[in-house]
Structure formats: structure tokens, C-alpha cells
């Protein structure tokens, strides 16, 4: 009991340190550049305490829950030896975590507004909603494919940098053909897909797989899943923009 309390307090201190830079940045700009003191100081203070507590709980939960389950499932799939189920799981994880992602829903709604203003689609509620939903499914599909592709890479030992370069070439070529309005959204969609829960799970999955297959180095083969999950949405969204 005493030990876990000590552990909790020291990670609390760590979270405090993590938060310090952004607090200093905001304080500096408030006091010296904008020359004002923010309102609701008490509310801000309480908010900061919640942020610090939240970060501490999250890191605690990572080590107890998300990391172990991700790795134990990777080991179990590797022992089972069924590539089909592993790839299905990878796809489900990518698709399922992305489709409900709040950041993605927000971006898709904005994108539909852009598209209707640019005259790509009809200026009606219905058309915009269809466009936004289509975009969401496109991105979720791309993340599902990306995680499966990344897992396949670990299984077959393909070199990651060639795959990433092929992705880059596709992005560059497709940028030339896609409508201008979609390009900014497509490039951004790579960044919004990977959420706070997905990243630790997917990382643990990759590292667990790489360490349970002989001849793989967890450092070289375990990482890289997130990279696919941030590149492939760009390709898929550019394609979506070209087709719709």
C-alpha cells in the first residue's frame, strides 16, 4: 500500500513536470505579450489539477491495462498461428477505433462544408451529411487497412521504408489530380486518426508480435504501425476527393 502510494505520488510529480511547459508558455504570452491577466484564475487552477490527475491515472492504466492486453493478444495470435484472424483483428482495431473518433467527426463535418462551398457537392443538408459520412468511413477503412498492412509487414518482414516511400509517391502523384479543396483536409486526416487509446494499444500489438516471432527485432519491426495509420488516410482521402 505504501509502495503504490509512493508510486502514485512520484507519477503525479512527473505529470506536473509534463504540464509545466505549456503553463509557462501561456503565462508568458498573457503577461508579457498580450499584457493582461486571464479571468477565472480559480477555474483554470482547478482545471489544471484535473489535467495532472488525468495524466497520472492514464499512465497508471497504460502499464496495468492497455500495454499488457495488447501484448498478450499479440503473443496469443502468434502462438495460434492464424494470420487470417490476426489480420482481421488488426483491421477491426483500426476501423473500430477510428469510426467513433471525435476529432475525425469534427474534421469530416468541416470538410463537407468546404466541399459544398467549393461546389463539389450540392449545397444541401443531405448532400453534406452524405459527404461527411462517406469521408468518415473512408478514413476508418484506411486505418483498418493500414494496421492490417502493418501487421502483414511484421509477419512477412517487408522493409518499412520502401512501403512508406511508395505511399509518399502515391500522395505526391495524387495531389496533382485531386481537387484543391480536398488536399489540406487529406493531409490533415493523417494526423487526426490516431487517438490516445489507439496509439498505446497498436504500439503494444506491434511490439508484442515482433518479439514473439523469431528473427524479428522489436525495435525495427515492432514500430511502424502508427506510421501506416497516418499515411494511408491521406491516400484514401485524396482518392475519395477524386471520385466524389
Amino acid at each position: 500500500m505504501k509502495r503504490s502510494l509512493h508510486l502514485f505520488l512520484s507519477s503525479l510529480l512527473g505529470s506536473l513536470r509534463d504540464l509545466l511547459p505549456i503553463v509557462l508558455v501561456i503565462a508568458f504570452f498573457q503577461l508579457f505579450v498580450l499584457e493582461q491577466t486571464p479571468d477565472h484564475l480559480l477555474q483554470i487552477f482547478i482545471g489544471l489539477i484535473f489535467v495532472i490527475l488525468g495524466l497520472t491515472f492514464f499512465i497508471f492504466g497504460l502499464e496495468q491495462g492497455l500495454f499488457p492486453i495488447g501484448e498478450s493478444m499479440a503473443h496469443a495470435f502468434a502462438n495460434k498461428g492464424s494470420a487470417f484472424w490476426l489480420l482481421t483483428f488488426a483491421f477491426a482495431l483500426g476501423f473500430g477505433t477510428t469510426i467513433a473518433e471525435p476529432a475525425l467527426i469534427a474534421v469530416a463535418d468541416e470538410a463537407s462544408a468546404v466541399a459544398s462551398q467549393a461546389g463539389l457537392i450540392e449545397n444541401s443538408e443531405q448532400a453534406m451529411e452524405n459527404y461527411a459520412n462517406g469521408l468518415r468511413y473512408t478514413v476508418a477503412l484506411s486505418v483498418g487497412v493500414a494496421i492490417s498492412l502493418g501487421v502483414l509487414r511484421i509477419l512477412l518482414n517487408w522493409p518499412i521504408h520502401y512501403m512508406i516511400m511508395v505511399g509518399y509517391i502515391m500522395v505526391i502523384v495524387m495531389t496533382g489530380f485531386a481537387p484543391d479543396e480536398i488536399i489540406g483536409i487529406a493531409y490533415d486526416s493523417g494526423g487526426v486518426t490516431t487517438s490516445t487509446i489507439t496509439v498505446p494499444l497498436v504500439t503494444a500489438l506491434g511490439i508484442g508480435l515482433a518479439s514473439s516471432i523469431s528473427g524479428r527485432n522489436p525495435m525495427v519491426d515492432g514500430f511502424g504501425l502508427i506510421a501506416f495509420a497516418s499515411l494511408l488516410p491521406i491516400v484514401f482521402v485524396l482518392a475519395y476527393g477524386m471520385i466524389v
Partner: protein
Amino acid sequence: MQVLQDLPALLLSTFFDILPIALIIFGFQFLVIRKRIKHLKKVLMGMFYVLIGITFFLLGLEEALFPIGRTMAAQLTNPLFLESVRISVGELQWTDYYWVYVFAFAVGAGTTIAEPALIAVAMKAHEVSGGAIGVFGLRVAVAIGVAVGLALGTYRIVTGFPMHYFIISGYIIVVVQTYFAPKLIVPLAYDSGGVTTSTVTVPLVAALGLGLAETVPGRSALLDGFGLIAFASLCPMISVMAYAQLSEFKNRPHRIHN
């Protein structure tokens, strides 16, 4: 107390965010793997901690950081403020937005250090590399990348250069670096692009991008407001590989010519 009023609703919405993930994990666990989870109680407790952690984290951000960050983004891009700090005469030049670039840089670095997903990846990298990669060192390298990326991104919005030139140049730098950087770091560096932009960074950055695109003459919020996140995901790849190259260079035994 506003905080406590918002707590139940937020807890519920975070729960529904985590639910599909939990369903996928336990569905596969019971139907496909068909083995009991080791330390099930501990794992469930861990997931519960994650739920609580994310809820508190988001709640605190909504109460403290986001409103003030959004207000500041609006204030810094306000024409009246720009007029008062300008250094050129005549029409506003791109150099007059210097506080915006500094703010983008500083906010990028500050929020990245506090980004939970990055902490998770850094912890794993530290463990897997046997301690060769420091948790804090990696996070600082990524933070510098995000900072430079956002400063560049705001500069692009102000000047109106087409975004794909920047992104394609970035890709070329990544490809060249891939050949020279230590092989062990490459996949981790590629990953670090995606993990930087989640909970903390995106809302603040989106406010800054939209604020800029709305106030800079000749920009459209809808067309130019996007794109900052792309910069923030590209530059960390470059900075993480550069960090590995620098540490390799420093640790290389010196060859002395006599």
C-alpha cells in the same frame, strides 16, 4: 461548480469512445483466442484507470487550457494587436506576424511534452531499446519537430504558399534521412509523426489555424485553415531522425590523423 457538473456527461462520452475498443478486444479474446486473460482483474482496473484518466484530462483541458488558448489565438491574430506590434510600414508584411510564429512554436513544444500518446510510445521505446532511447530525450526531439512544424505552418498560412510544396519537400528530406539515419530509429521516427497530434495539440492548433486564415487578407478559413496538423505530423519524423543522427555522431570514436 461547473467542473463537477460536466463530469458525469464527459465520463459517459469517454466510456462510449472506449466501448468499441473494449468490445473488439474482449470479442476476439473470447471468440477467437479462447483463453483466459492473465491478471484479468488487474487489466480491467487498468482500463478503468485509463477511462478515469482520459476523462479528467479532457475535463481539465476544457476548463483550463482550451478556452484561454483559443482566446489567445484570436487575440494574437487580431488586426488591432498586429497593428500595435508591427515592425514594417505600409501594408502588413509577413514579418509582422512574428508573435504568431513564436506562439505556434511554443504551444507546439509545450503541448507535445504533455501529449499522453507520445508518453506511451516513448515508454515503450525506452523499454524495447534496453534504455538506449531516453523517454525524455525522445519526447523533446518530437516536441522540437512539432514546434518547427507549426511555426512553418503558420508562416505558410500568412504567406499563402501552396501547402504541397512544403509537404513534398518534407517527404524528400525524410527519404534522404532514412538512408543516413541509424536503422534502428527509422520505424520509431515514422511512428512519431502520427502520435504527436491527438488530445492536447489538435484543438489548440485548429483554433490558431482558423484564426489566422480568417484575419489574414486574401486567405479563406475553409481552404487555408487546414494543414497545420499535417506540418505537425511531418516535422517530428525529421527531428527524431536528426536526433538519432546527432547522438550517433557524438558517440562515434574520434579518428585522429597524425
